[in-house]
């Protein structure tokens, strides 16, 4: 008879194998297949999918969508870093309350939040009405269906993801280091440059990672807020799979995305190692 222990192990291994490992290999395999209108992907193996990724039009799409996601990530970092820094200065209770308050919108459907942005950015939306009322502008701004709207939407949806890892990095930072720096007359800029940024770098990298990676895939944000040319990688992949039905190309695109993800994870690992090394030095000196 199978023991409970054996059952648990079999369940674990088979679920992960069937639902995670095998599908990833299937995508990798598909990316080397030949597209076929009847059976989606067939023999023989070819590199056509990948050479298509490097075709001029797709390289443009690839780069411009990376650009949109990268800008959104950068803005999240510029807003999230000071936000996390300020939050870390509050007492734990206040901090936790503020964190919950920040996370609450994040728990509502992100599609509906994208729709909310659409309403806010419209010609007669909150922002235009406010700016017109304040007399800052004379005519309503054209914000919807532009790259700006896509970036705005991405930042809005993903900002909390940036703040969470940063907060935990700031919490780990010992205040003695900052006091020592102040005693040694380090300026605010020097404290930021030599203490805050290096020692929160795992948080920075982790935050950028969990903003940047999903940002590339959020096709509905570009669909709802963006114009005809503001595409994310997700739009391209979705089109290839569900509309054009060129699965090998879609898979090759996705494999490229996975490779980018792998490189970023490597960077994260390096940043973590770097801080641990620095931390080790500090322990010795104490």
């Amino acid at each position, binding site marked *: 008879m199978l023991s409970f222990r054996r059952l648990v192990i079999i369940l674990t291994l088979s679920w992960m194998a069937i639902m995670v490992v095998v599908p990833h290999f299937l995508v990798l395999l598909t990316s080397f297949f030949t597209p076929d209108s009847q059976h989606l992907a067939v023999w023989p193996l070819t590199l056509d999918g990948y050479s298509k990724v490097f075709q001029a039009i797709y390289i443009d799409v690839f780069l411009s969508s990376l650009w949109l996601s990268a800008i959104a990530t950068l803005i999240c970092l510029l807003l999230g870093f000071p936000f996390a820094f300020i939050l870390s200065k509050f007492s734990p209770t206040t901090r936790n309350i*503020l964190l919950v308050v*920040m996370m609450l919108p994040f728990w509502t*459907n992100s599609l509906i939040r994208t729709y909310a942005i659409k309403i806010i950015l419209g010609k007669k939306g909150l922002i235009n009405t406010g700016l017109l009322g304040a007399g800052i502008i004379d005519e309503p701004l054209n914000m919807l269906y532009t790259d700006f709207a896509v970036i705005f939407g991405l930042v809005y949806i993903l900002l909390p993801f940036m703040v969470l890892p940063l907060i935990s990095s700031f919490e780990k930072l010992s205040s003695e280091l900052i006091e020592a720096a102040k005693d040694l007359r380090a300026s605010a800029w020097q404290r930021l440059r030599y203490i805050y940024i290096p020692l929160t770098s795992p948080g920075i990298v982790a935050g950028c*990672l969990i903003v940047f*990676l999903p940002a590339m*895939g959020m096709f*509905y944000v570009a669909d709802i807020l963006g114009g005809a040319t503001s595409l994310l990688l997700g739009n391209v992949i979705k089109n290839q799979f569900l509309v054009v039905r060129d699965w090998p190309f879609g898979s090759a695109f996705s494999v490229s995305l996975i490779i980018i993800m792998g490189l970023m994870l490597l960077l994260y690992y390096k940043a973590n190692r770097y801080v641990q090394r620095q931390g080790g030095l500090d322990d010795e000196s104490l």
Partner: protein
Amino acid sequence: MKAFRIIFISLILVFLYAPIAVLVGNSFNSSKYGQKWGGFTLKWYEKLLENDSLMTAFGHSLLVAVLAATTAVVVGTLMTLAIYRYRFPLKKTTSSALFILMMSPDIVLAITFLVLFMALGVSLGFWTLLLAHTTFCLPFVVITVYAQLKGFNPYLFEAAKDLCASEWQIFTRIVLPLLLPAIAASWLLSFTLSLDDVIISSFVTGPEYEVLPIRVFSMVKVGVSPEVNVLATLLLVVSTISIAIFVLLTKNKQLNKSN
């Protein structure tokens, strides 16, 4: 300096809440396009109830969320137990597969599921949706449950073993009762994740089993629709309640730790 900090925090919170506030306000606004206040009304709420296709999709989404969260919690808890207590081949690979599952962008997971289901020749619908949702919730269950399991005194298990408890007894009499808060918390987390998912759902379900995000997506793309405001308000209430419970549950965990 302090004033500056408070202003910055407030601005961020306004940025996060203003769009939602507009939606909630518009759900009670009798003017259809919601650019001006046309007076208080509940007619959009009635309209939502009358909108059969939207309500059916909502029902489908709730059903999948409940079942996916439940399955994910059962499988995830057993998985955590396996990783925490047992030695088995490919254990490291299992942990890294969980990590990949968590880090992979939804779009990548979505196509891996789609390619799998197509290769197996399964038709897309309820079952594929359930399997996909359960799988992408798993790593979050494992993380939450593992964090609590690590907080236990390991001698608990050894004492139980000395007293000749079987693995099944250890699981049902010790692990489960102690893990209950983490299990409940991860259920809520999975429920919300499943309800929120747009990307994976649009790949792994077919036309005969439409879920909420896909329905809403097609409504929102065309134009403004007041029923979506109502839906947003209702979902906001549901998520506020579940996050409140989640916070209370994880707070208890911290209490346990300090004891």
